[in-house]
């Protein structure tokens, strides 16, 4: 702790990425730029690691006085947890960018959004939240803008809608409470609600606006439409941060509305119950569940590796939202845990896709195959990521999903729990495809001279792969951390073993069993199996001849039957709905413009007369 004085912890965490980003932009030379960028991303991680003791036992606060508003930042165990996850993915992103990007522009804006995320996590009042929220959105938006105008526009419009809802909500809070501090505002609001100073509808509106604002960033269906494009049409190294951490800012927003502002907490009770569940949170749980199902189905059907990962991201964040909505200790603990594990495995995934795109220049499954031999280290990383995402022990992804599932069962939400199961099955379906289509099978001849991913990218992957295993084998580590800021009701027996009121998960024993099992299977395979080679294309045909266009190999149209089964549902697309809405408003704009500003000065004089008439009628009556 003596290494970094307490007063510098927060400003260093907040501003070093931005400052170094600007420097990298200014000194736009190879190596200089990358070095500066990596330093900028490394500072928060270092500072946060050093500040762990202080932050987990107390708080470090910091205030900036802009004169217009005072900006408060607090580093406590909650914000430390989120910020640390962010910083970890951030440094991985920086390593990745060193390989994939040669532009100062990218460094500037990706590090700008880094600063934005840190600000969002550390903010303790609404203005700082909004300010850094916008900074974060702006940085990520500029990254998309450079690559695709249409997708950036979609992202931007939805973000702006979210931002303005937040602004409106903040304004409404401030108007009634006169303060912008989370704690103060929520206390005052609670008091006012109790005394009847604020109507229920007013508070409901605030609540809804906040959820809208955070829902956009978290990509809750139907606000997710920006995500596939924005995640996909981007520098993939940056996407690891974008999808891994920026979406968590949305989650963090949900956490603020649900837990940091206890008055809103009180409002859930005021909103009444529905089948024994609090209506407000039940809605959130279902929003999450729908997100899980819809996004997972869509992910399964994608033919583009980036789209698949993007929809998968949306779906996985859906889990977190769902768990928050389940609203009991275990589920929320699981949500917090899943924030960690999702950031780790999805960040890893995107870095892998960055490596693939960098080395092959291809993005569609049909163009890949057999890369495991060419890029062995990347393949090992991919294996970890896939296992973790699919929720297979001993990876972090299993522990978190298990907790969420336990929580849902405890809360007597069988349907919600069912969606978790369905989502897991679907996740398995798409990661299998990712695993098989990309790494195994026949290798297209143009991929024969593919090389292993460059070193910085591999370093980045390693940074993210290790936590996947560590927190998988030692879930107690994470849960103990979470227990510091939230009473999860989960007992930590040891680093390796955690217990909920209904069950115990001993990661170490599971791992050991698994290793033993694998070893036996391996032995059986090596010594006992009577293996016969078959053609890869044969798997699905089962001997029946098929036409060429219905040739469903794992690399092409693999899940086409599923798509046909879902035909009816796929007709409806939120994307198209929004497109139509946009067209409608453009038509409205034209109508207004041509109709009102019609160029005839006499009509304009009539407008004046009408205003006079309104004044007159008011005067006469």
């Amino acid at each position, binding site marked *: 702790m003596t290494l970094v004085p307490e007063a510098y912890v927060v400003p260093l965490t907040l501003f070093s990425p931005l400052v170094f980003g600007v420097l990298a932009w200014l000194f736009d030379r190879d190596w200089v730029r990358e070095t500066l960028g990596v330093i900028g991303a490394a500072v928060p991680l270092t500072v946060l690691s050093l500040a762990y003791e202080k932050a987990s036992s107390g708080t470090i606060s910091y205030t900036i006085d802009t004169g217009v508003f005072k900006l408060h930042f607090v580093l406590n165990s909650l914000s430390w947890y989120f910020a640390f996850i962010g910083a970890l993915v951030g440094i991985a992103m920086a390593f990745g960018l060193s390989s994939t990007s040669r532009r100062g522009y990218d460094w500037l804006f990706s590090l700008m959004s880094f600063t934005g995320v840190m600000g969002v996590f550390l903010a303790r009042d609404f203005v700082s939240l909004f300010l850094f929220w916008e900074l974060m959105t702006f940085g990520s938006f500029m990254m998309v803008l450079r690559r695709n105008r249409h997708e950036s526009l979609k992202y931007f419009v939805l973000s702006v809608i979210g931002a303005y809802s937040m602004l409106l909500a903040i304004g409404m809070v401030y108007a009634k409470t006169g303060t912008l501090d989370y704690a103060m505002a929520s206390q005052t609001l609670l008091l006012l609600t109790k005394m009847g100073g604020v109507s229920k509808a007013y508070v409901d509106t605030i609540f809804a606006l906040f959820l809208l604002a955070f829902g956009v960033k978290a990509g809750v269906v139907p606000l997710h439409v920006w995500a596939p494009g924005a995640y996909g049409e981007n520098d993939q190294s940056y996407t690891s941060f974008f999808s891994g951490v920026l979406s968590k800012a949305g989650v963090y927003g949900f956490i603020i509305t649900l837990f940091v502002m206890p008055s809103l907490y009180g409002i859930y009770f005021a909103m009444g119950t529905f089948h024994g569940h609090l209506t407000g949170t039940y809605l959130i749980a279902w929003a999450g569940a729908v997100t899980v199902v819809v996004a997972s189905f869509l992910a399964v059907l994608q033919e583009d590796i980036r789209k698949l990962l993007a929809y998968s991201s949306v779906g996985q964040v859906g889990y977190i939202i769902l768990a928050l909505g389940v609203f009991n200790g275990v589920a929320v603990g699981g949500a917090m845990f899943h924030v960690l594990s999702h950031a780790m495995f999805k960040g890893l995934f995107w870095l892998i896709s960055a490596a693939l795109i960098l080395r092959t220049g291809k993005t569609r499954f049909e163009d890949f195959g057999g890369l495991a031999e060419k890029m062995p280290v990347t393949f090992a990383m991919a294996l970890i990521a896939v296992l973790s995402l699919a929720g297979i022990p001993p990876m972090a992804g299993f522990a978190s999903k298990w907790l969420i599932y336990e929580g849902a069962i405890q809360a007597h939400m069988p349907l919600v729990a069912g969606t978790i199961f369905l989502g897991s099955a679907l996740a398995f379906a798409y990661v299998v495809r990712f695993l098989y289509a990309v790494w195994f099978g026949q290798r297209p001849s143009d991929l024969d001279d593919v090389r292993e991913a460059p070193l910085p990218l591999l370093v980045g992957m390693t940074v993210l792969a290790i936590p996947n295993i560590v927190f998988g084998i030692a879930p107690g580590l994470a849960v103990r951390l979470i227990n510091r800021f939230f009473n999860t009701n989960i007992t930590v027996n040891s680093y390796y073993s955690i217990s909920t009121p209904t069950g115990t998960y001993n990661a170490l024993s599971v791992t050991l069993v698994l290793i033993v099992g694998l070893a036996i299977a391996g032995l059986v395979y090596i010594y006992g199996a009577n293996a016969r080679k078959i053609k890869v294309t044969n798997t699905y045909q089962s001997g029946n001849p098929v036409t060429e266009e219905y040739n469903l190999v794992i690399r092409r149209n693999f899940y086409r039957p599923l798509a046909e089964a879902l035909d009816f549902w796929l007709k409806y697309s939120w994307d198209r709905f929004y497109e139509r809405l946009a067209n409608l408003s453009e038509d409205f704009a034209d109508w207004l*413009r*041509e109709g009102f*500003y*019609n*160029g*005839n*000065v*006499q009509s304009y*004089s*009539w407008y004046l*007369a009408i205003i006079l008439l309104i004044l007159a009628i008011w005067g*006469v009556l």
Partner: protein
Amino acid sequence: MSVPHIGLYYFGALSLVLVGIYGVLVKKNLLKILISLSIVETGVNLLLISVGYITGRSAPILSEGIGPKQAVDPIPQALVLTAIVIGVATTAMALSVAITLYEKYGTLNIEEIRRLRG
């Protein structure tokens, strides 16, 4: 709702204003519109000056026999002087614009002078 009692002078001035506005709202010819605007201005000026009138008193020139108690309010008259000049200036500007418009568009029909719209 009762009919407000206003003097004949007010009524006349007000009528001029309304007649002028009517012209602006209905006439298609730009020159007629500009003339209507002038009528409005005249009406307003008359209104302004009649507000300053005090029954039975004379112009505020304090020469023989007219003291401060025998003169009407001088301020509206001073204001009207200014307002008239402003009206003249506006009309002059408007007319030169109309000349330019006629040169460029070949018409003074305001329904045809609509290149700027939307």
